[in-house]
């Protein structure tokens, strides 16, 4: 396959989930910050809430790597 197309596919595999992650974190961040202002004991929940959308971009990165290093 055309190397340019492979590179584009890998870039899209990271870029689209990255945008989705950014959008999700932009929504979660202020909400969890406001919650923590009232209940500081929510810090663990905050860590989890911020880390959960990162799964999208991390798995996107994994897929991109697999696209780039796939045999053939």
């Amino acid at each position, binding site marked *: 396959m055309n190397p340019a197309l492979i590179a584009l596919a890998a870039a899209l595999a990271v870029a689209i989930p990255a945008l989705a992650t950014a959008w999700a974190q932009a929504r979660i961040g202020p909400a969890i910050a406001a919650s923590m202002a009232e209940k500081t004991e929510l810090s663990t929940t905050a860590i989890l809430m911020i880390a959960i959308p990162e799964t999208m971009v991390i798995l996107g990165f*994994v897929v991109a790597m697999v696209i780039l290093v796939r045999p053939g």
Partner: protein
Amino acid sequence: MILPMSKLRILGPRQRLDEVFRALQDLNLLHLSAPESAGPLESSRLDARQERHRDQLRRALADVEAVLAALQAGRGTVGKAPPAPTASDFARWARLAGRVRRETDHLTTREAELDDERALILKYQHFFSAFRALLESESRWTNATAYHVLLKRGDAGTIPALRASLTAAIGDEFELHSQTLPSGETAVLAIVSARAAGRVEQLLAQARVEEIPVPEAFGGKSLADAIPRMLERLGDIPGELDDIRARRAVLARSHGAELRAARLAIHDRLRALEALPLSGVTPRAFVIEGWVPTRALPALEAGLAEACGDEVVVTEVARQEWQSEEAPVVLSNPRLLRPFEALIRLFPLPRYGSIDPTPFMAVFFPAFFGLMVGDIGYGVLLAVGGLILHRLSRPGTVWRDAAEIIGPCALASILAGILFGELFGDLGAHWLGLRPILFSREEAIVPFLLLAVALGAVHILLGLVLGVVSARAQPRHAFGRGVATAMVLLVILALLAAVNVLPRRFFSPAVIGLLIAFPLLIALEGLVAMIELLATLGNILSYARIMALGVASVMLAVVANRMVGALGSVIVGVLFALLFHLVNFGIVLFSPTIHALRLHYVEFFGKFYSPGGVRYQPLGHWTRARGPARSTAQPERRTA
């Protein structure tokens, strides 16, 4: 592990209740729980005298805390206090705290006044410096009035408009001078003939321009007269502030130790009073119930017998009479694993009778962290940071726990760095000829991915097995969980056989096993179990993040190294490379921690963890380290 607990019932004559509470406070072992009211037994209440005493103690404590804070004397040696303070001791402390508080409040108010005064004078001083010559000749303007105005930073552009307005209103009967002050504000001095003054004041009022008034304290209408006196006063203020500080130091020296002793005694007395309603009383007897770690039971019995004699009886409540959920939780782990209890405490505590995940976290958290960082250089930096933090922190604090968690994480990073042949990315390979023992993360992406997912499978299967163990009290549920665990294992076997990692002959038995287990799982756990099974497989894939973060870390390090030759100048390249490594190290500190935590809290704990445990808080003496908010013990470190 979660320490086994015993529930106790302490009985004795009612008149000895206070004495028993004092003994329990000394022993610091019993976590109180209110006994159920039944028959003649009712909850103990504070009488009117005790309520009054409690309110007085609270007020005195507020005074003591305020004084110690104002004198910055919260820490230090504690003065001698009677072993059993009497009402007159508390009254004396209350009077002392009230008297010293009045004085410290006065000193604080005076200090604030002096600060305000100094700020005001400094404002005039700048104005005076700007127009010194003009102001000094102000007294000669027999038929003129001076107006002093300060314009905010950025408002200097309005001066031409002001000049035009004055010209339009009073012609040429004024002089306007302006100068920018060091603060960025603009000082404006307008000298206006006496007969035009009224019109100018009207103009200033209409434009809402606020003139700087000459402070009353310095008298006179002329700023030129007031400023020398103000400058003289400015020289006196530091001396007065020093006097205030010296007086505070004298108060701290003469009363600090006694007030710290008072704080301890008042807290202790308040805690005993507030614990009183947790006992039950009949007209002649009292009942106290509570929990103690089973291994500390002999110590409590012996301590009470010694303090209160044989009139007070301690009996253990039979295990059948209490539910697991009622018992408080004490985590107790070997010294090396103990720092990881801090990571468990970020989460709600596990219920009594369930599994303490600390030992598993102590093994897997550093392992995941190490695989994500996987660099000898970053590992060494982390170890150095951990050692410094350990040196600077005090035992029992969050920082000490963090330092002790950093140690194993740094070690795991160094070990992984040796396996992957990484020292600040590929710098070790170029300079020292370092070669990977396992594989290079920079190139062997797929093997690293498989390693991460395989680790995930092991971790999740361990969680599922722990889930079976924790559900052992409900055999049907435990069996259902066992079937789900077996199905996950069979899916993994079938997949490995399908891609020829395992011999092909494993494939058919694995699939047949799945077909048999499927209806069994539905029958035992319902349809939801199937969704959970799929989610579990998704959980295993989630461990791919170990590979993703690991590859991102090494790539950033390699990019940093390549900057040395890519920017023309070697010095600039080295500086940029160092900066990039620093950024990468910052990411290395943060991201792997968050994701290793997440893999535990979400993926692993979800398989077996039962939150909702009650923290074990024995009735004990107050100490500053625990503080009023956490007024009961953190017993994992000190009792049982």
